[in-house]
């Protein structure tokens, strides 16, 4: 019956997105407890979306290639920071500085991405934890370079603004106001309210069109209708008096809030890239490798090379993502800006509904929204509930780790159930089975 299939389509939708839905509920609850204003939340979310989405989107390609969550994107972030330090040293500014940062970070990220890929190929089956450890290790090297070697006899530069007073080591905190701060954001800015309303209306129309198309094909349309309604509701919330007035005054100098349109456009380009990439020959090869290394190998695909390419692309994208992040934050905390990049990005995409085997653009964006919502509201919620804002912080750290632990555990469980499908066989299976191999034992 049409009714039943609608219901089952809805139930299926809820089940498949259970993590995201759960997170939404928890966030809404905390939002209500914390008493934070909606317009404030929207303002913060827009900022964080612009800052972090690129980084999270960088995680998708390694997932497709079967390498799981790329915890080593922190290496890309460090490559970007090296570029930022260099650009600061060369005293560049404006869009030139921005372009230079992108350009300088590229070869660094490519090189270290290549190294990372090679190490991960030697730890097949343990990619995620090895990636994580590589991140820590690279951090040590990064500190070695920028705390010990810069300014010393090995890298003899002199720059009192950049270096510590002892002459050796980069300062803990570098102000980017004169270099890249806002250089991408300020290219085009549009009022937030317009932006949100247009996105909301466009979304609503898109889902309605999809629903109608589905109905014509005889498929269930309730999910699309639901999403259309949510978009409309969103527009409604934005236009609500309290929210609207808040948004119209929360920009700098009590001006209407604006969004960095160009930055969002760049993020949108990555969106498109992820999609188109999968339709190329290279993308198809990565998909094959991600599905089954042994089948890919027997079809003549160079599995090791594909995996390295996947990590290299991800590292470069992470580097550029970190640049976008830094130009918005405006300050480079030399030793810590990159620390939690891996943790937060992975947690975000998992919250959005991705898994170790499957990640999509939509999941990345939704994940950023949900994860950062919780980020914003939990300290206040903790304060309101327990009179202890720190508790709220502990809670959100726990959730970040917990979401990842849960996703990894579920994936591990499923992998065991799925049996030996993807056991790495770098060598090829001889035709006719292993009679010879076992006879020689």
């Amino acid at each position, binding site marked *: 019956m049409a009714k039943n299939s609608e219901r089952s389509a809805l139930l299926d939708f809820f089940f498949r997105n259970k993590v995201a839905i759960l997170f939404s509920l928890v966030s809404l609850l905390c939002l209500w407890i914390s008493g934070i204003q909606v317009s404030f939340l929207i303002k913060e979310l827009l900022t964080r979306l612009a800052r972090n989405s690129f980084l999270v989107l960088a995680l998708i390609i390694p997932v497709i290639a079967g390498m799981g969550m790329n915890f080593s994107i922190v290496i890309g972030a460090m490559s970007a920071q090296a570029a930022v330090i260099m650009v600061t040293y060369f005293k560049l500014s404006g869009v030139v500085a921005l372009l230079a940062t992108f350009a300088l970070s590229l070869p660094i990220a490519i090189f270290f991405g290549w190294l990372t890929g090679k190490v991960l190929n030697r*730890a097949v089956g343990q990619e995620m934890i*090895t990636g994580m450890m590589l991140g820590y290790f690279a951090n040590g090297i990064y500190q*070695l370079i920028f705390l010990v070697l810069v300014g010393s006899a090995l890298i003899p530069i002199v720059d009192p603004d950049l270096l510590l007073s002892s002459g050796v080591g980069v300062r803990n905190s570098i102000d980017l106001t004169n270099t890249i701060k806002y250089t991408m954001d300020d290219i085009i800015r549009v009022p937030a309210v317009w932006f949100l309303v247009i996105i909301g209306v466009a979304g609503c129309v898109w889902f309605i069109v999809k629903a109608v198309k589905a109905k014509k094909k005889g498929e269930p349309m309730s999910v699309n209708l639901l999403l259309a309604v949510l978009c409309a509701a969103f527009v409604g919330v934005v236009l609500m008096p309290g929210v609207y007035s808040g948004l119209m005054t929360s920009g700098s100098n009590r001006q209407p809030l604006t969004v960095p349109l160009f930055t969002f456009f760049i993020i949108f380009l990555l969106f498109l890239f992820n999609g188109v990439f999968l339709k190329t020959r290279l993308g198809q090869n990565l998909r094959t490798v991600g599905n089954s290394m042994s089948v890919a190998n027997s079809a003549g695909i160079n599995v090791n090379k594909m995996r390295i390419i996947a990590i290299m692309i991800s590292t470069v994208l992470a580097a550029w993502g970190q640049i976008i992040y830094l130009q918005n934050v405006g300050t480079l905390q030399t030793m810590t800006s990159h620390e939690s990049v891996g943790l937060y990005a992975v947690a975000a995409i998992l919250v959005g509904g991705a898994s170790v085997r499957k990640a999509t653009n939509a999941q990345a964006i939704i994940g950023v929204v949900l994860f950062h919502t919780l980020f914003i509201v939990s300290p206040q919620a903790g304060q309101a509930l327990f009179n202890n804002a720190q508790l709220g912080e502990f809670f959100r*750290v726990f959730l970040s780790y917990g979401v*990842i*632990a849960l996703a*990894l555990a579920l994936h*591990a469980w499923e992998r*065991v159930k799925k049996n030996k499908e993807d056991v790495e066989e770098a060598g090829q299976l001889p035709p006719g089975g292993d009679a010879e191999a076992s006879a020689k034992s």
Partner: protein
Amino acid sequence: MEKIKRGLKSFGLPRIIILLFFVFLCVMAIVRDLNFPSLLSNVIARMPMDGVLVLAMVPGILCGIGLNFGVSIGIIAGLLGMTISMEMGATGLVGFAVAILISTVFSSLFGYGYGAALNRMKGSEMTVSTYVGFSVVALMCMGWALLPFKNNNMVYAMGAGLRPTIALDGYYNKILDDFGVFTVGGITIPTGSILFLLGMCFLVWLFLRSKTGIAMRAAGQNPLFAEASGISVNKMRIVGTVLSTVIGGIGIIVYSQSYGFMQLYNAPRMMAFSAIAAVLIGGASANKASISNVLLGVFLFQGILVLGLPVVNDVFQVQNLSEIMRIIITNGIIIYALTRVKGGTSRG
């Protein structure tokens, strides 16, 4: 010659590098007149502090769950034991014993649940256990802030939960260290701690020669072989996990009594990594470990830390270099071990 070559190859390049580095530090300390004898005895004196935690890695590796990144669960159990013991007002040897007892109860429970979960994730134990460990530490952060402790020595004056660092003075500070302590050439040798560490090592060694211990080792080395003799590999993995968790709990108590302070909140987060790095440096791998790996590993690891600071400061005059070295060595050796993990053969 062939045998030497083979031996070196299996020992591994990173370990050779670390060994040579240690020798280099020793040489530098002697050459630069940095009081090498006292430094060396310092190392020996500090070995028992970390030793038990490193020992906790051995049952985990042997039973087949690999490097136990989730030993933080045991550490939390140990901290719970200590806080509850202190809350109860137990001091001295009694306090120490009560802490260990309570810790063991908690770690057995936690270890059992943790082991049962790991049994369903064969092949991915290390990845999952890292994040489970982190989550538990983060969860307990909330716990330390919320649990109804009242002892003045432990809680904030304003009553908002436990303090992050709690002194053990008047309780069992240095209770092991001071037992039979003697001074030689200006360095205190904490006899009690050393005896305790050796005692724990001996107990583990005995266990590995018992029927269950032998079965556990077989289950880790070759699960099919073990099953073929009627052993339940899953059960053995739980035995190893519980043991690892229990010893981890005891380990943090030994560490704390030597350090003089209990450290809560985020302090336990990265302790697993140091313990893992130490046992790896001592020659263990993700599939194979022995007690000698523990003793050698702790010695080298501590050696590099203790010798590193004065030598590096003397030669390079840079503040944080020894800390950076520690990061590079710790993580580097773990990455090396991960690139040599055998593929799993169990059909779990």
